[in-house]
């Protein structure tokens, strides 16, 4: 009863905040809606007994990434979007590709039918100790690969941001 209520309550907030993120004219409000969305998602994780994921969601996304987003938005002093900005053809094409990919992914996820006992094991994976074991024992190789990819993108970002000096 309570969990059903919480699910609907948090879902409505999450969806409303997500819509707010893409419709708000002011980038600061977009960022704030996104923060609200992250909090609602963290609440949904909590109802699934995935406390660790929920807290990490808050620490990493709400606490670090969105603070940096806000910082950049405020630093550049971005004003409200003008109403008649029209997306270019390239943007529209990319949006269609990304949206199509998202729909495909979601249909694949919804097609998965979990057996009841498997559902239980998925829930148990929210525990910190279990996640630690999985990341550093069973899936240590993909985990390390991801960290290398992140490092590469970090180096790339610095390289792009840095102005080249002519030799």
């Amino acid at each position: 009863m309570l969990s059903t209520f919480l699910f609907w309550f948090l879902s409505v907030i999450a969806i409303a905040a997500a819509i707010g993120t893409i419709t708000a004219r002011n980038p600061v409000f977009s960022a704030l809606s996104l923060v609200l969305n992250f909090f609602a998602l963290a609440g949904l994780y909590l109802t699934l007994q995935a406390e660790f994921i929920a807290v990490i969601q808050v620490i990493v996304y709400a606490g670090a990434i969105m603070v940096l987003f806000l910082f950049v938005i405020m630093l550049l002093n971005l004003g409200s979007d003008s109403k008649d900005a029209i997306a270019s053809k390239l943007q529209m094409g990319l949006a269609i590709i990304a949206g199509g990919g998202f729909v495909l992914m979601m249909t694949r996820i919804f097609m998965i039918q979990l057996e009841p006992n498997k559902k239980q094991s998925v829930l148990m994976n929210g525990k910190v100790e279990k996640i630690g074991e999985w990341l550093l024992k069973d899936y240590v190789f993909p985990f390390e690969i991801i960290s290398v990819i992140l490092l590469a993108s970090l180096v790339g970002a610095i390289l792009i941001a840095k102005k080249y000096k002519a030799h």
Partner: protein
Amino acid sequence: MELADIGRILATILSIVGGLITAAAGMVYAERKVAALIQQRNGPNRVGPWGLLQPFADVLKLFIKEDIVPSISNKFVHFLAPVISLLVALSAVALIPFAHNIYIADINIGILYTLAITSIAVYGITLSGWSSNSKYALLGGLRSSAQMISYELAMGLSVVSVILLTNHFSTKDEYLRLSSIIDAQTTVWNIFRNPIGFLIFLTCAFAECNRAPFDLAEAEQELVGGFHTEYSSMKFGTFFLSEYINMFMASAITSILFLGGYHIPFEGLFADKINPTLLSVLEVMMFLTKTSFLIFVFIWVRWTLPRFKYNQLMNIGWKVFLPLSLLNLVVIAAVLLFIK
């Protein structure tokens, strides 16, 4: 859950929050008295005996002052910012164990929850800076967000070193619980096992609380009042209140992580011989003594050290504390592996 249970939880929450707000008033008084002591003045001594009623007079004054909102500010966010600040400061207290049986909640991801709460505290300051539509407030908000991001990493890494120690010394098996972290310190406090971690954590706590020598977000000489320049009346009071509650929280967390929390030295010798209620009372007093001492250190440092420059702050955060805390973590992990 029974109705009586909900009633008891609500009563605990109300008494702890009420006590915290009163404690904040006491801390304001302590700050002014210690500042006066350090600067060889008398400090407040007119309102009530020894000036003890000064903070209450100040709060009364703040309440009856006019609330001025800048005309071209963002009114909603301007109102929201102090609310976020106070809400975040107060919600961190939910996990603080005052004695082995006095707390609002003891959850299995305790220390992570605390880190999450401190990491979102920056929104109150950043948003107040942005919504005021004033260059001083905006600069204060920007500085604050950059500062908090920089110091959170070193802080998190020193917490990780504490969790490694907890893993090794605790008799319980959920190492992120605050009660397990205290349990691991029954023989030796973590400050002796991990002194570098303690220093890094305490310094980062100064930065996270926006206290001198890291109070760049409200550097009076450069930014008028920093992020709260455009706030008046009780909205300003709310920022003030949450700053002191944050200071209390930082001291409480530091005492839990490094000074054994509510644990009394040599408690094992007499714990089972005395009345359990008396033991709880003694533990609360022990915890408050440790926390008060750390609050005194906060005040002491504020009135002793000059403020850092912005570039110095960033340099120390990224080039000194981050590598140092990483090194500390590796050394502790290696030692623990060796003595296993």
